[in-house]
Protein backbone atom coordinates (compact mmCIF):
# COMPACT_ATOMS: atom_id res chain seq x y z
CA UNK A 1 0.00 0.00 0.00
CA UNK A 2 2.34 2.68 -1.23
CA UNK A 3 -0.21 5.14 -2.53
CA UNK A 4 0.44 7.63 0.25
CA UNK A 5 4.11 8.00 -0.54
CA UNK A 6 5.38 9.98 -3.48
CA UNK A 7 6.19 7.90 -6.48
CA UNK A 8 9.64 6.42 -5.77
CA UNK A 9 10.80 6.89 -9.33
CA UNK A 10 9.31 9.93 -11.02
CA UNK A 11 11.81 9.70 -13.89
CA UNK A 12 10.44 6.28 -14.76
CA UNK A 13 13.90 4.89 -15.41
CA UNK A 14 12.99 1.74 -13.58
CA UNK A 15 9.24 2.00 -13.92
CA UNK A 16 7.54 -1.34 -13.62
CA UNK A 17 3.82 -1.18 -14.32
CA UNK A 18 1.50 -2.51 -11.69
CA UNK A 19 -1.42 -4.31 -13.24
CA UNK A 20 -4.37 -5.63 -11.32
CA UNK A 21 -6.28 -8.44 -13.01
CA UNK A 22 -9.73 -9.33 -11.73
CA UNK A 23 -10.38 -12.75 -13.17
CA UNK A 24 -13.17 -15.26 -12.90
CA UNK A 25 -12.54 -18.51 -11.11
CA UNK A 26 -13.77 -20.77 -13.87
CA UNK A 27 -12.21 -19.57 -17.09
CA UNK A 28 -9.54 -16.91 -16.95
CA UNK A 29 -8.01 -18.12 -13.69
CA UNK A 30 -7.69 -21.59 -15.17
CA UNK A 31 -6.37 -20.04 -18.38
CA UNK A 32 -3.66 -18.31 -16.36
CA UNK A 33 -3.03 -21.58 -14.56
CA UNK A 34 -2.66 -23.33 -17.89
CA UNK A 35 -0.17 -20.70 -19.00
CA UNK A 36 1.82 -21.59 -15.89
CA UNK A 37 1.70 -25.36 -16.32
CA UNK A 38 2.65 -24.93 -19.98
CA UNK A 39 5.65 -22.86 -18.87
CA UNK A 40 4.50 -19.91 -20.99
CA UNK A 41 6.44 -16.86 -19.93
CA UNK A 42 4.66 -13.58 -19.27
CA UNK A 43 5.61 -10.41 -17.39
CA UNK A 44 5.40 -10.66 -13.60
CA UNK A 45 3.70 -7.24 -13.39
CA UNK A 46 0.24 -8.63 -13.06
CA UNK A 47 -1.47 -9.18 -9.69
CA UNK A 48 -4.20 -11.72 -10.18
CA UNK A 49 -7.28 -11.43 -8.01
CA UNK A 50 -9.60 -14.37 -8.34
CA UNK A 51 -13.34 -13.84 -8.00
CA UNK A 52 -16.20 -16.27 -8.53
CA UNK A 53 -17.46 -14.62 -11.70
CA UNK A 54 -17.11 -11.44 -13.75
CA UNK A 55 -20.68 -10.75 -12.69
CA UNK A 56 -19.35 -10.50 -9.14
CA UNK A 57 -16.84 -7.77 -9.96
CA UNK A 58 -18.08 -4.66 -8.25
CA UNK A 59 -17.15 -1.50 -10.12
CA UNK A 60 -15.75 -0.20 -6.84
CA UNK A 61 -13.00 -2.78 -7.18
CA UNK A 62 -11.73 -1.06 -10.31
CA UNK A 63 -11.67 2.26 -8.51
CA UNK A 64 -9.97 0.63 -5.56
CA UNK A 65 -7.25 -0.82 -7.79
CA UNK A 66 -6.38 2.66 -9.02
CA UNK A 67 -6.59 4.04 -5.50
CA UNK A 68 -4.03 1.53 -4.30
CA UNK A 69 -1.59 2.34 -7.06
CA UNK A 70 -2.48 0.24 -10.08
CA UNK A 71 -1.35 1.60 -13.43
CA UNK A 72 -3.76 -0.58 -15.37
CA UNK A 73 -6.65 -2.88 -14.61
CA UNK A 74 -7.74 -5.99 -16.44
CA UNK A 75 -11.14 -7.59 -16.08
CA UNK A 76 -11.39 -11.02 -17.60
CA UNK A 77 -13.83 -13.90 -17.56
CA UNK A 78 -15.53 -16.61 -19.55
CA UNK A 79 -16.51 -16.14 -23.17
CA UNK A 80 -20.18 -15.32 -23.75
CA UNK A 81 -22.21 -18.50 -23.44
CA UNK A 82 -19.59 -20.19 -21.25
CA UNK A 83 -20.40 -18.65 -17.87
CA UNK A 84 -20.37 -21.16 -15.03
CA UNK A 85 -23.40 -19.37 -13.64
CA UNK A 86 -24.98 -19.16 -17.12
CA UNK A 87 -25.29 -15.37 -17.34
CA UNK A 88 -22.81 -13.61 -15.03
CA UNK A 89 -20.63 -12.45 -17.90
CA UNK A 90 -23.62 -11.09 -19.83
CA UNK A 91 -24.57 -8.98 -16.84
CA UNK A 92 -20.97 -7.86 -16.47
CA UNK A 93 -20.74 -6.91 -20.13
CA UNK A 94 -23.76 -4.68 -19.84
CA UNK A 95 -22.48 -3.08 -16.67
CA UNK A 96 -19.06 -2.31 -18.13
CA UNK A 97 -20.59 -0.79 -21.24
CA UNK A 98 -22.15 1.88 -19.03
CA UNK A 99 -19.32 2.10 -16.53
CA UNK A 100 -16.71 2.84 -19.19
CA UNK A 101 -18.74 5.84 -20.31
CA UNK A 102 -18.84 7.19 -16.79
CA UNK A 103 -15.09 6.83 -16.31
CA UNK A 104 -14.49 8.37 -19.73
CA UNK A 105 -16.56 11.40 -18.74
CA UNK A 106 -14.56 11.71 -15.54
CA UNK A 107 -11.37 11.89 -17.58
CA UNK A 108 -10.00 8.51 -16.52
CA UNK A 109 -7.65 7.12 -19.18
CA UNK A 110 -9.59 4.37 -20.88
CA UNK A 111 -6.37 2.83 -22.22
CA UNK A 112 -5.67 1.67 -18.69
CA UNK A 113 -8.80 -0.42 -18.31
CA UNK A 114 -8.95 -3.63 -20.27
CA UNK A 115 -11.64 -6.24 -20.73
CA UNK A 116 -11.07 -9.67 -22.22
CA UNK A 117 -12.68 -13.06 -22.43
CA UNK A 118 -10.13 -15.82 -21.79
CA UNK A 119 -11.23 -19.42 -21.48
CA UNK A 120 -9.62 -22.18 -19.45
CA UNK A 121 -7.99 -23.46 -22.64
CA UNK A 122 -6.50 -20.13 -23.68
CA UNK A 123 -3.24 -20.10 -21.78
CA UNK A 124 -1.56 -18.58 -24.76
CA UNK A 125 -4.12 -15.79 -25.02
CA UNK A 126 -3.49 -14.99 -21.36
CA UNK A 127 0.21 -14.77 -22.07
CA UNK A 128 -0.39 -12.46 -25.03
CA UNK A 129 -2.88 -10.25 -23.23
CA UNK A 130 -0.66 -9.75 -20.20
CA UNK A 131 2.39 -9.09 -22.36
CA UNK A 132 0.49 -6.54 -24.44
CA UNK A 133 -1.03 -4.75 -21.48
CA UNK A 134 2.28 -4.61 -19.65
CA UNK A 135 4.08 -3.16 -22.66
CA UNK A 136 1.33 -0.66 -23.37
CA UNK A 137 1.26 0.46 -19.74
CA UNK A 138 5.03 0.68 -19.64
CA UNK A 139 4.91 3.08 -22.58
CA UNK A 140 2.16 5.16 -20.98
CA UNK A 141 4.07 5.40 -17.73
CA UNK A 142 2.68 5.38 -14.20
CA UNK A 143 -0.89 6.60 -13.78
CA UNK A 144 0.19 9.82 -12.10
CA UNK A 145 -3.15 11.54 -12.52
CA UNK A 146 -4.96 9.10 -10.26
CA UNK A 147 -2.03 8.74 -7.90
CA UNK A 148 -2.22 12.51 -7.46
CA UNK A 149 -5.91 12.25 -6.62
CA UNK A 150 -5.15 9.75 -3.92
CA UNK A 151 -2.16 11.52 -2.44
CA UNK A 152 -2.48 15.29 -2.61
CA UNK A 153 -5.82 15.48 -0.87
Amino acid at each position, binding site marked *: MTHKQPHPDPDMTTFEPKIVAYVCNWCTYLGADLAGTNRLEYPPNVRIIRLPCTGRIDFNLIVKAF*ETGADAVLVSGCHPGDCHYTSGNYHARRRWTLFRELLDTLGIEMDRIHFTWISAAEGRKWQQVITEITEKTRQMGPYLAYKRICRVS
Partner: protein
Amino acid sequence: MTKQLHKVCRELLESGKVQVIIGYGQKDRGQPPHPVFITSPEEVEGLVWNDQCVANLTTYLTRKEIRALGKPAIIVKGCDARAIVVLQRESQIDRSAMVVIGMACNGVGEPRLAKCAACDAHVPAHVDITIGEAVSEPVDPERRYNDLNVFMTQSTDERMDYWQDELERCVRCYACRQVCPLCYCERCVADKNRPVRFSTAPTLKGNYAWHITRAFHLAGRCIGCDECTRACPAGINLRLLNLSVARAAENAFGYRAGLDPEAEPVIGSFSTQDKESFIK
Protein backbone atom coordinates in the same frame (compact mmCIF):
# COMPACT_ATOMS: atom_id res chain seq x y z
CA MET B 1 -54.54 25.58 -12.64
CA THR B 2 -54.03 26.30 -8.97
CA LYS B 3 -57.79 26.53 -8.41
CA GLN B 4 -58.34 23.21 -10.12
CA LEU B 5 -55.53 21.73 -8.07
CA HIS B 6 -57.16 22.96 -4.84
CA LYS B 7 -60.50 21.49 -5.92
CA VAL B 8 -59.02 18.09 -6.78
CA CYS B 9 -57.04 17.94 -3.56
CA ARG B 10 -59.96 18.99 -1.39
CA GLU B 11 -62.11 16.27 -2.91
CA LEU B 12 -59.43 13.67 -2.42
CA LEU B 13 -59.02 14.55 1.26
CA GLU B 14 -62.74 14.98 1.98
CA SER B 15 -63.66 11.68 0.35
CA GLY B 16 -60.99 9.98 2.40
CA LYS B 17 -59.34 8.60 -0.73
CA VAL B 18 -56.04 9.89 0.55
CA GLN B 19 -54.82 11.07 3.93
CA VAL B 20 -52.02 13.36 2.85
CA ILE B 21 -51.24 15.56 -0.14
CA ILE B 22 -47.56 15.96 -0.94
CA GLY B 23 -47.33 19.25 -2.78
CA TYR B 24 -45.75 22.69 -2.97
CA GLY B 25 -46.37 25.57 -0.62
CA GLN B 26 -45.00 29.09 -0.72
CA LYS B 27 -44.58 31.53 2.16
CA ASP B 28 -44.64 34.61 -0.03
CA ARG B 29 -44.27 35.28 -3.69
CA GLY B 30 -40.61 36.11 -3.67
CA GLN B 31 -39.55 32.89 -2.01
CA PRO B 32 -39.12 29.57 -3.75
CA PRO B 33 -41.88 27.03 -3.14
CA HIS B 34 -41.15 24.37 -0.57
CA PRO B 35 -42.62 20.92 0.02
CA VAL B 36 -45.78 20.79 2.14
CA PHE B 37 -47.72 17.88 3.53
CA ILE B 38 -51.42 18.70 3.72
CA THR B 39 -53.56 16.44 5.85
CA SER B 40 -56.84 18.35 6.19
CA PRO B 41 -59.20 19.79 3.54
CA GLU B 42 -59.06 23.25 5.17
CA GLU B 43 -55.37 23.52 4.42
CA VAL B 44 -55.47 22.89 0.67
CA GLU B 45 -55.46 26.63 -0.02
CA GLY B 46 -51.83 26.47 1.01
CA LEU B 47 -50.95 24.52 -2.10
CA VAL B 48 -49.36 26.43 -4.93
CA TRP B 49 -48.38 25.66 -8.48
CA ASN B 50 -46.15 27.92 -10.57
CA ASP B 51 -43.01 27.77 -12.63
CA GLN B 52 -40.86 27.94 -9.50
CA CYS B 53 -41.94 24.49 -8.33
CA VAL B 54 -38.56 22.91 -9.00
CA ALA B 55 -38.32 20.23 -6.30
CA ASN B 56 -39.00 16.61 -7.16
CA LEU B 57 -41.36 15.53 -4.39
CA THR B 58 -41.28 11.85 -5.22
CA THR B 59 -38.30 11.45 -2.91
CA TYR B 60 -40.78 11.64 -0.01
CA LEU B 61 -42.77 8.63 -1.16
CA THR B 62 -40.27 6.18 0.28
CA ARG B 63 -39.70 8.04 3.56
CA LYS B 64 -40.94 6.28 6.67
CA GLU B 65 -42.18 9.44 8.37
CA ILE B 66 -44.24 10.39 5.31
CA ARG B 67 -45.58 6.87 4.88
CA ALA B 68 -46.78 7.05 8.47
CA LEU B 69 -49.13 9.88 7.45
CA GLY B 70 -51.25 7.47 5.42
CA LYS B 71 -52.17 7.02 1.78
CA PRO B 72 -50.66 9.89 -0.22
CA ALA B 73 -51.56 11.95 -3.21
CA ILE B 74 -48.52 13.51 -4.80
CA ILE B 75 -48.11 16.43 -7.15
CA VAL B 76 -45.61 15.78 -9.93
CA LYS B 77 -44.25 17.32 -13.08
CA GLY B 78 -43.61 15.24 -16.17
CA CYS B 79 -40.00 14.61 -15.24
CA ASP B 80 -40.84 13.68 -11.64
CA ALA B 81 -43.49 11.22 -12.81
CA ARG B 82 -40.71 9.09 -14.27
CA ALA B 83 -39.29 8.55 -10.81
CA ILE B 84 -42.61 7.03 -9.78
CA VAL B 85 -42.40 4.63 -12.72
CA VAL B 86 -38.93 3.51 -11.63
CA LEU B 87 -39.94 3.22 -7.96
CA GLN B 88 -42.91 1.12 -9.01
CA ARG B 89 -40.76 -1.09 -11.23
CA GLU B 90 -38.36 -1.61 -8.34
CA SER B 91 -41.21 -2.52 -5.98
CA GLN B 92 -40.49 0.41 -3.68
CA ILE B 93 -44.01 1.80 -3.74
CA ASP B 94 -47.48 0.40 -4.08
CA ARG B 95 -48.71 2.38 -7.04
CA SER B 96 -52.33 1.41 -6.44
CA ALA B 97 -52.16 2.86 -2.92
CA MET B 98 -51.52 6.42 -4.03
CA VAL B 99 -52.93 9.10 -6.27
CA VAL B 100 -50.53 10.81 -8.65
CA ILE B 101 -51.56 14.29 -9.75
CA GLY B 102 -49.63 15.35 -12.84
CA MET B 103 -49.18 19.03 -13.55
CA ALA B 104 -48.73 20.09 -17.15
CA CYS B 105 -45.51 22.08 -17.16
CA ASN B 106 -43.72 24.36 -19.58
CA GLY B 107 -40.47 24.37 -17.68
CA VAL B 108 -39.47 25.46 -14.20
CA GLY B 109 -36.83 27.56 -12.53
CA GLU B 110 -35.58 31.09 -13.03
CA PRO B 111 -33.63 30.96 -15.26
CA ARG B 112 -35.09 27.78 -16.75
CA LEU B 113 -33.31 24.63 -15.65
CA ALA B 114 -30.98 22.91 -18.09
CA LYS B 115 -33.17 19.83 -18.21
CA CYS B 116 -36.20 21.86 -19.35
CA ALA B 117 -34.47 22.83 -22.60
CA ALA B 118 -34.81 19.28 -23.91
CA CYS B 119 -37.93 18.24 -22.02
CA ASP B 120 -40.25 15.83 -23.77
CA ALA B 121 -42.59 15.33 -20.81
CA HIS B 122 -44.51 18.61 -20.63
CA VAL B 123 -47.61 16.52 -19.98
CA PRO B 124 -46.86 13.84 -17.37
CA ALA B 125 -47.33 10.21 -18.32
CA HIS B 126 -48.54 7.38 -16.07
CA VAL B 127 -50.45 9.66 -13.69
CA ASP B 128 -53.98 9.36 -12.33
CA ILE B 129 -55.13 12.97 -12.70
CA THR B 130 -53.70 15.51 -15.13
CA ILE B 131 -54.21 19.20 -14.48
CA GLY B 132 -53.68 21.90 -17.07
CA GLU B 133 -52.45 21.89 -20.61
CA ALA B 134 -48.91 22.46 -21.73
CA VAL B 135 -47.40 23.73 -24.91
CA SER B 136 -45.65 20.66 -26.20
CA GLU B 137 -42.98 21.22 -28.77
CA PRO B 138 -41.16 18.41 -30.51
CA VAL B 139 -37.71 17.99 -29.04
CA ASP B 140 -34.64 16.81 -30.89
CA PRO B 141 -33.55 13.78 -28.82
CA GLU B 142 -29.88 14.70 -29.21
CA ARG B 143 -30.50 17.93 -27.33
CA ARG B 144 -30.97 15.95 -24.14
CA TYR B 145 -27.25 15.29 -24.09
CA ASN B 146 -26.12 18.67 -25.42
CA ASP B 147 -24.25 19.69 -22.28
CA LEU B 148 -22.46 16.36 -22.14
CA ASN B 149 -21.61 16.37 -25.84
CA VAL B 150 -20.05 19.80 -25.48
CA PHE B 151 -18.15 18.69 -22.37
CA MET B 152 -16.83 15.59 -24.11
CA THR B 153 -15.18 17.64 -26.84
CA GLN B 154 -12.45 18.34 -24.27
CA SER B 155 -9.43 16.07 -24.00
CA THR B 156 -9.14 13.37 -21.34
CA ASP B 157 -6.64 15.48 -19.40
CA GLU B 158 -8.87 18.54 -19.50
CA ARG B 159 -11.78 16.48 -18.21
CA MET B 160 -9.57 15.07 -15.46
CA ASP B 161 -8.60 18.61 -14.43
CA TYR B 162 -12.20 19.75 -14.54
CA TRP B 163 -13.40 17.01 -12.23
CA GLN B 164 -10.53 17.46 -9.83
CA ASP B 165 -11.57 21.09 -9.42
CA GLU B 166 -15.21 20.10 -9.08
CA LEU B 167 -14.83 17.18 -6.69
CA GLU B 168 -12.31 19.00 -4.56
CA ARG B 169 -15.20 21.14 -3.33
CA CYS B 170 -17.33 18.19 -2.23
CA VAL B 171 -17.82 18.17 1.54
CA ARG B 172 -19.58 14.79 1.58
CA CYS B 173 -22.80 16.17 2.99
CA TYR B 174 -24.65 13.58 0.88
CA ALA B 175 -27.32 16.10 -0.07
CA CYS B 176 -27.18 14.55 -3.56
CA ARG B 177 -28.14 11.24 -2.04
CA GLN B 178 -30.82 12.56 0.30
CA VAL B 179 -32.64 14.54 -2.35
CA CYS B 180 -32.59 11.74 -4.91
CA PRO B 181 -35.90 9.86 -5.21
CA LEU B 182 -34.05 6.75 -6.35
CA CYS B 183 -31.33 6.69 -3.67
CA TYR B 184 -33.61 4.91 -1.25
CA CYS B 185 -31.30 2.26 0.26
CA GLU B 186 -31.94 1.98 3.97
CA ARG B 187 -28.24 1.67 4.47
CA CYS B 188 -26.10 3.34 1.86
CA VAL B 189 -22.88 1.70 0.76
CA ALA B 190 -21.14 4.90 1.86
CA ASP B 191 -22.32 4.30 5.42
CA LYS B 192 -21.29 0.67 5.59
CA ASN B 193 -18.21 0.25 7.66
CA ARG B 194 -17.72 -3.49 7.77
CA PRO B 195 -15.98 -3.60 5.38
CA VAL B 196 -15.35 -0.01 4.36
CA ARG B 197 -15.96 0.16 0.62
CA PHE B 198 -14.38 3.54 0.11
CA SER B 199 -13.05 6.42 2.14
CA THR B 200 -15.73 8.58 3.71
CA ALA B 201 -13.32 11.44 4.32
CA PRO B 202 -13.95 14.52 2.18
CA THR B 203 -10.66 14.07 0.35
CA LEU B 204 -10.26 13.90 -3.38
CA LYS B 205 -9.71 10.17 -3.19
CA GLY B 206 -12.90 9.53 -1.26
CA ASN B 207 -14.86 12.05 -3.29
CA TYR B 208 -13.98 10.34 -6.55
CA ALA B 209 -15.01 6.98 -5.15
CA TRP B 210 -18.28 8.40 -3.83
CA HIS B 211 -19.31 10.24 -6.97
CA ILE B 212 -18.44 7.29 -9.19
CA THR B 213 -20.50 5.09 -6.89
CA ARG B 214 -23.42 7.49 -6.69
CA ALA B 215 -23.62 7.96 -10.44
CA PHE B 216 -23.26 4.29 -11.17
CA HIS B 217 -25.75 3.09 -8.59
CA LEU B 218 -28.17 5.21 -10.60
CA ALA B 219 -27.12 3.66 -13.90
CA GLY B 220 -30.18 3.04 -16.02
CA ARG B 221 -32.31 4.38 -13.16
CA CYS B 222 -31.63 8.10 -13.08
CA ILE B 223 -34.57 9.92 -14.61
CA GLY B 224 -32.65 13.17 -14.99
CA CYS B 225 -34.55 15.41 -12.58
CA ASP B 226 -31.23 17.06 -11.70
CA GLU B 227 -32.20 17.42 -8.06
CA CYS B 228 -28.71 16.27 -6.98
CA THR B 229 -27.17 19.11 -8.92
CA ARG B 230 -29.64 21.60 -7.44
CA ALA B 231 -29.15 20.36 -3.88
CA CYS B 232 -25.35 20.37 -4.01
CA PRO B 233 -24.09 23.17 -1.75
CA ALA B 234 -20.76 23.12 -3.56
CA GLY B 235 -22.37 23.50 -6.97
CA ILE B 236 -20.80 20.36 -8.42
CA ASN B 237 -22.11 19.62 -11.88
CA LEU B 238 -23.36 16.12 -11.12
CA ARG B 239 -25.72 16.40 -14.05
CA LEU B 240 -22.88 15.57 -16.44
CA LEU B 241 -22.15 12.26 -14.70
CA ASN B 242 -25.81 11.25 -14.74
CA LEU B 243 -26.09 12.23 -18.39
CA SER B 244 -23.08 10.18 -19.38
CA VAL B 245 -24.53 6.95 -18.02
CA ALA B 246 -28.00 7.77 -19.35
CA ARG B 247 -26.62 8.46 -22.80
CA ALA B 248 -24.72 5.18 -22.78
CA ALA B 249 -27.86 3.29 -21.78
CA GLU B 250 -29.84 4.93 -24.55
CA ASN B 251 -27.19 4.52 -27.23
CA ALA B 252 -26.16 0.97 -26.40
CA PHE B 253 -29.45 -0.54 -25.25
CA GLY B 254 -32.13 1.89 -26.42
CA TYR B 255 -33.23 2.31 -22.83
CA ARG B 256 -34.43 5.38 -20.98
CA ALA B 257 -35.39 5.15 -17.34
CA GLY B 258 -38.93 5.86 -16.23
CA LEU B 259 -40.67 5.73 -19.59
CA ASP B 260 -42.23 2.28 -19.46
CA PRO B 261 -43.37 0.61 -16.22
CA GLU B 262 -43.12 -2.80 -17.90
CA ALA B 263 -39.62 -2.43 -19.37
CA GLU B 264 -36.83 -4.62 -18.00
CA PRO B 265 -34.28 -2.44 -16.19
CA VAL B 266 -31.13 -2.04 -18.24
CA ILE B 267 -28.92 -3.26 -15.40
CA GLY B 268 -30.28 -6.54 -14.13
CA SER B 269 -31.23 -7.78 -17.56
CA PHE B 270 -29.13 -8.60 -20.61
CA SER B 271 -29.23 -9.72 -24.17
CA THR B 272 -26.83 -12.19 -25.74
CA GLN B 273 -26.69 -9.72 -28.64
CA ASP B 274 -25.28 -6.85 -26.56
CA LYS B 275 -22.38 -5.15 -28.31
CA GLU B 276 -18.93 -5.76 -26.91
CA SER B 277 -16.52 -3.86 -29.11
CA PHE B 278 -14.43 -2.94 -26.06
CA ILE B 279 -13.85 -6.54 -24.98
CA LYS B 280 -10.93 -8.30 -26.61
